[in-house]
């Protein structure tokens, strides 16, 4: 069984190939993949096309947006093991900052972006500081509540548009020849892709250093991490705040593309879908998370020809997938030597039942 498993373990094969490759090959491969990502809007392949909706729009929302948000949520859920069910709140805060400042003041997109991210981070601190003492499931319900509160607040506050939301959000100013208009989602996609790549780079840097090791320790055992002298509270809040910042970026970009937002776009389902992306792809592993997000965002659009039952199919696929591969499609690489007995112990110990 162990042999069979390792033979078909594409993720480990890929990781090994990557680690054995000389530097020039790594650079060449990275450039190749990044170039493909940037060229995606021009590909008109019947395999990946989305009949029923504009492929270029799909690339921006949901695919690109889900990837960005899933990477952000992965910092919180995957790396530090804090179950956050209200992630959409930070997305909403970013989007509303863009909407309100964009319509009521003369600030442009690039000036609002840091404000939106800052506000999202601030709300992350405000939510995180008191609640991160709570254990798993309690944290889940409190964050879920926070997500709902932000939405209900937006629905009931008329000065920020109430249930009708905000319309007429300005688009970002042009960069060189790239014009940001509602008709052309390509520049938005490229902008989002650039942000995503930057964030992936930052997260990977961070994960390899002190914060990353602290998050690892906290995820595996909170108490032991604290005994080892890690300021667990601080690193948990940091994970929360960084996750919030990523969602804030997503929110600002989203609002500037969609032009009008309504509070009901930011409901619990978004949080759950993003969480599903993280778990589906392989929790903790950034490439797995990206794959999961692409699949979960893309599949409902790809099977739009099924129209009515497509979400039903999606739900069933989720159940089947989790039953077949409970660790996700591309689980996080286990650095230890593979030992089937150990693995079960480790898996049950790591953030599971107890």
């Amino acid at each position: 069984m162990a042999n069979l498993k390792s033979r078909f373990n594409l993720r480990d094969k890929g990781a090994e190939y990557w680690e054995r490759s000389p530097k020039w090959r790594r650079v060449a491969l990275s450039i190749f993949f990044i170039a493909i990502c940037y060229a995606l809007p021009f590909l008109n392949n019947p395999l990946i096309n989305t009949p029923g909706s504009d492929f270029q729009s799909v690339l921006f929302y949901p695919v690109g947006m889900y990837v960005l948000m899933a990477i952000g949520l992965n910092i919180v859920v995957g790396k530090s093991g804090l179950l956050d069910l209200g992630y959409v709140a930070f997305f909403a805060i970013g989007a509303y900052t863009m909407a309100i400042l964009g319509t009521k003041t003369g600030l442009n997109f690039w000036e609002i972006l840091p404000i939106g991210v800052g506000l999202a981070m601030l709300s992350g601190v405000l939510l995180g500081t008191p609640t991160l003492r709570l254990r798993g499931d309690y944290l889940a319900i409190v964050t879920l509540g926070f997500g709902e509160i932000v939405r209900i607040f937006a629905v009931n506050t008329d000065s920020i548009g109430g249930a009708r939301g905000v319309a007429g959000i300005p688009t970002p100013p042009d960069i060189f020849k790239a014009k940001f208009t509602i008709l052309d989602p390509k520049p938005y996609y490229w902008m989002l892709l650039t942000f995503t790549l930057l964030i992936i780079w930052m997260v990977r840097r961070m994960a390899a250093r002190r914060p990353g090791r602290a998050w690892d320790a906290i995820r595996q055992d909170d108490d032991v991490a604290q005994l080892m002298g890690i300021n667990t509270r601080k690193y948990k809040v940091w994970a929360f705040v960084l996750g919030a910042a990523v969602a804030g970026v997503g929110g600002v970009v989203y609002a500037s593309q969609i032009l009008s937002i309504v509070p009901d776009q930011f409901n619990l389902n978004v949080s759950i879908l993003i969480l599903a992306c993280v778990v589906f792809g392989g929790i903790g592993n950034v490439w797995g998370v990206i794959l999961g997000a692409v699949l979960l965002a893309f599949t409902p659009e790809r099977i739009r020809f099924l129209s009515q039952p497509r979400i039903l199919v999606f739900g069933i696929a989720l159940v089947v997938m989790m039953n077949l591969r409970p660790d996700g499609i591309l689980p996080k690489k286990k650095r230890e030597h593979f030992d089937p007995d150990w693995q079960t112990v480790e898996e049950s110990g790591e953030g599971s039942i107890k």
Partner: protein
Amino acid sequence: MDFALLRDAFWGLTFDGIALGAIYALISLGYTLVYGVLRLINFAHSEVFMIGTFAALVAASGIMGVNIEDDPRTGGSMILTLLVCLIVAMLASAITAVLVEIVAYRRLRQRGATKLATLISAIGVSISLVELFRIITDSLPREFPRIMEKTFLFSYAGADIRNDKVIVIIAAGLMMFALERFITKSRLGKGIRAVSMDENTSTLMGVNINRVITVTFFAGGLMAGAAAFFYILVYENTSFKVGFFLGISAFTAAVLGGIGNLKGALFGGFALGLMETWTSAVFGTAWKAVISFIILVLVLLIKPTGLFGESIQQARV
């Protein structure tokens, strides 16, 4: 802010709050039972409730032949209709809950999968069921025929006591009593408490863990089905979305009292029902969810395991 309304209609609101709280308490018992045994949030429990409401609807119009235009029934015919609807709703919910366990949980549990994987699997079941009913009902809410004449029995301190809500409160109390007897006295109930204390040891002591888990889901489903019937009896409509709102509130109630603790679920249910009706009188219905969550956060900050702690094994209900 309208404190005058709260002051004037206090007893009426309190009565409504208790009736709503009874429904919350019944649903949150399902969350708490499953949490006690599996240490998992049963995300699909809200859909177990939703299916109960539709089962009651089918029982009323299909089996008992009550139409929307009909006059409310009286006497023996009314009691029979009420009972049939209640039993059908309870059974439908209980069977759904057991199926959810088999489809979403069993395999993952036996493979020792992580908590999050199981959560996503349950979310998948939840999404599928909601979508199934959205397609069946064409995204439209459904009206429930009026089975019984709703009259005011008597007035107390300005509160009009309506008969259907009295039935709900009494029947819910009976259900909770029956569940308490079952958990504390019966053999299977002992099994449930043993598994919630220590799964491995109870397996060694000869407890059939699969059966215990099935029974746990069944019992939780029965309670959710009863809650579904009471809900539809009082509010007389349902839709595919009904589970979502009620489910969140009931889950909040379970956490408020200390999830995994039966007494906590009951207390949390009633407390949340009362808080929601009182605060919606003061701040307007739009804000009631916000107020409940703020109260929940405050409680958790002071006592992080909920008001009654979180162990099912010590529960005396």
